[in-house]
């Protein structure tokens, strides 16, 4: 169950990015960092992550677009998308899930809750 997964983290807040990077690497995952949507797209061109931790409010290309792109691209659509956003209203959560995300967590998040969620999403990924 402990295979190395590839995790892509997308957030325009450097500190948040750093904290998520730490958390993921501690679990032994291979981490890719994108500081904004454009960088995320660039990374997605060559890598197929198993999980994407995705901020929503970002300039230029926001998280919704990234999520839709991932879910509509054959090559990428098996990646799990976890929205991490300060937008926490019920409507926001619903919108996020409608975009095709596999999970949605609001900021600030509990690192423990995040860790569990990540494990859960990556387990779903294991195909027979």
């Amino acid at each position, binding site marked *: 169950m402990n295979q190395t997964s590839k995790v892509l983290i997308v957030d*325009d*807040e*450097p*500190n*948040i990015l*750093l*904290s*998520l990077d*730490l*958390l993921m690497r*501690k679990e032994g995952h291979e981490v890719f960092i994108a*500081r*904004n*949507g*454009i960088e995320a*797209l660039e990374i997605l061109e060559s890598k197929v992550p198993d999980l994407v931790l995705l901020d929503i*409010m970002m*300039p*230029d*290309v*926001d998280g919704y*677009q990234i999520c*839709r*792109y991932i879910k*509509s691209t054959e090559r990428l659509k098996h990646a799990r998308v976890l929205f991490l956003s*300060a*937008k*926490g*209203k019920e409507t926001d959560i619903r919108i996020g899930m409608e975009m095709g995300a596999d999970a949605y967590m609001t*900021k*600030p*998040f*509990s*690192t*423990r809750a995040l860790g569990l969620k990540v494990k859960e999403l990556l387990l779903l990924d294991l195909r027979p």
Partner: protein
Amino acid sequence: MMNPWLVTGLSVLYIGVLFLLAWQSKRWKFFSRPEVRAWIYPLSMGVYCTAWTFYGSVGKASRDGLEFLAVFIGPTLTAPLWWIVLRKMIRISQVQRTSTIADFISSRYGKSVSVASIVTLMCFLGIIPYIALQLKAISESFNLITGGGLGSGKNDFFHNTALYVALFMAAFTILFGARKTENYEKHNGIVVAVAFESVIKLLAFLTAGIVLIYGIFGGLSPLFTSAMEFPEVRKNLVLPEQGGMGEWFWVSSLSALSIILLPRQFLLAVVENDEEQHVRNAMWVFPTYLFLINLFVLPLAIAGMLTFQAGTVDPDYFILQLPLHFNMPALAILVFIGGISAATSMIIVETMALSTMFTNHLLFPVLVGVESIKDRIAPHVSAIGLWSRRLAIIAVLALSYLYYLNLNKVYSLVSIGLISFVSVAQFGPALLGGIFWKKGTRAGALSGILTGFTFWIYTLMLPTIVSHYDWGKEWMDYGLFGQAWLRPNSLLGLEGFSPVAHGFFWSLLFNLLAYIVVSLNTDQDVLEKNQSEVFVDIFQYSAVYERTVVLKGKASLPDLEGLLSRFFGEERSRQVIRLFARKHQIEISDPGVPADHRIIAYTERLLAGVMGSASARMMVSSIVAEEEIRLDEVVQILKESQQILSTNRELVRKSSELKSALEELASANFRLKQHDHLKDDFLSTVTHELRTPITSIRAFTEILFDNPDIEMEDRQHYLGIVIKETERLSRLISQVLDLERYESGRQKLSLTRITPKELVQDAMEAMDQLYREKGVQIRLELDSETTELVCDQDKILQVLLNLLSNALKFVEKDLGWIVIRGKKTEDAYHWEVEDNGKGISKEYQELIFEKFFQAQNQLTRKPKGTGLGLAICRRILELHGGTISVSSQPGKGSLFSFVLPDWNGAKDSNYLENPTETK
């Protein structure tokens, strides 16, 4: 006169070559090359030219001049139509997996057993005489070349030849036509052999023509010149009296129909076609072939008439008699072999077609239809089919032989052939109507065919059999019961036509009438309606055929598999079903659920390959509990499948459009974002902005808490982040509250008097450290720095600090400079803060004073500000009655300026908290 054993030996050798070709050609790469295959197809259609063409045409030419060409004009003129008609038939045939013409027609009219069996019977009646005349040609040519008499004298020998030929042909045909169980599989070997025979007969004919005409007679012109000198020859070169132009028309029409409707033609042109594009090739190759093989017919006829006394030699065999007469044994043998080619290819293919039709449409329906027999035969169906075909081949040849024995000498090769043509022409209305007219019904087809057939028997078939009996002669001269209008060769008083044209006219007229009238007055059942839709619109449906088959019955998958396994074996049946299900994404895991109707249709098709569609239908319906399905449901389903096709195409187009649209979205989005951002609810933006530093604080705190073993250096780093983010948070909260106060108008100014100098000093104190760190140069250009300004000191300081820290952010390290200017005018003090930083583009210059806006380049990190600074500055200046603005050019730095009006003697107390004295 040649040695009969030599001739026999050579013939057998030739047949051996054919055998080899048919058997081995599938292994030779040469025959799989597409260019070669493209030629094999039209050449195989050359089976149209039988011993009739080879021998009979010359005979006919000698009697009736150019009229022999009528049979070839028909196909030549209608060849351009093949692209539509023939191609449609091929497509239908492939989709429906029909193996014979009877199958095809019956399938169109609801897979009707009655139609199939009637068509089969008619083919037998019509074609057996045609086969008989091939036997006649072979044996007569054999007798001629070996010196046997032309008939009367050596009775036993004559008969024996034909018998041996018949037996031999039966054996050969069985070897090649009745080996495999699945008769829808293509018989590629036979096709190659037939194409080869077409080539041989053409070569033989052309060689004979060239050698005889140029060698013996000196060429075409000398030949014609000599011909003109003989009146009896000359008269035949003009268009003959009987029928005249009418005769040409009818015979051409007849042959145009036959080129498709003859069972052998249908088999080779439709069923054995493996590439529709070949039809294009055939459209010009075949007429060319006809042209070439007919090239020397007339010259040879003339040559024969010139050489032999009238009546001494049968003109049908001029082409053989001439080389014999001129002592050219090699040429004679070549001609003989050519004649064998012409005759044997016809015999083989027609016999195969007839035996298949017999098995599928006469035998199987009976076996499958009777309950008690059906279950017992199931495991042996393939064997039964095979043996039935073999026996049928023998039967066909036996019948042909018997017919041959009774052949009346009055009828030449050509006329027997034409009579056969008229018999298959009766399928014309039903078949052609079936593929172009949806309204044609089974009742209509049956009426048409039976009517036509009756006329055919009466006007053409019977006369050939009974005319040498007295009562027969009487019937022919005086009509049935002495009624003149019932004379078989001039019904209703129609005179002046040859028997063939006459018979063709009446039979086809009443056939067509019956077909149309009855069709218009009868209804189609569900299956017929389905089939008529699919047949007429085949090009639309062939891509989605699976969806078009309308069966509303329920059958369980195990039942279907069981049915199939009786014929194909358990393992193979299961595999085949599984493959099909996978291909069409049908769920088959649950055996309790009724099988998808597409699988039922597929099962039926598979069985059709073994036993014909009508019987297959019967077998499948016996295990399917059928439900009533309404006509409009049928049409609905068919229309839906068309809909699916076009929707599919739409989807493909749309998704590629979508991809390109997505790429454009990124750039378009940016422009939208500015305004979008502004329209955001202030509160939600604030909460978002507040939550961001809290997120980092919480995350790092938890990380540090959960991981005591983190390196000291990292711990310090992370704690530093926590501290910074806390500060950021506090700042943000203050600013938000501030701004909120400004917005709601609750903010009050607390006025003091202060000099610009003092203000700047305070500001510099705060920024000094930071400026030093970044190596930024500061310059002051303060005018009247000691004038007293009346303003809210803290707030104006706030403005200055904001501008200065912005400038700090955007200048380059060590290279940056900032200038603070102050200038007094009569009623205000003008401040300027200029820097040489990266500047602000025109678009942003308006927006930067908006709440939360932060001018940033995509690739830089988020600036550390809150985005509220300038918005607050603007508010502050507004409260003071002043303004703030910016002028800047990207890359050339920015110049912020704000104007502080003179409040000396301010009257308005709304904004004032408590006017105080100077500090």
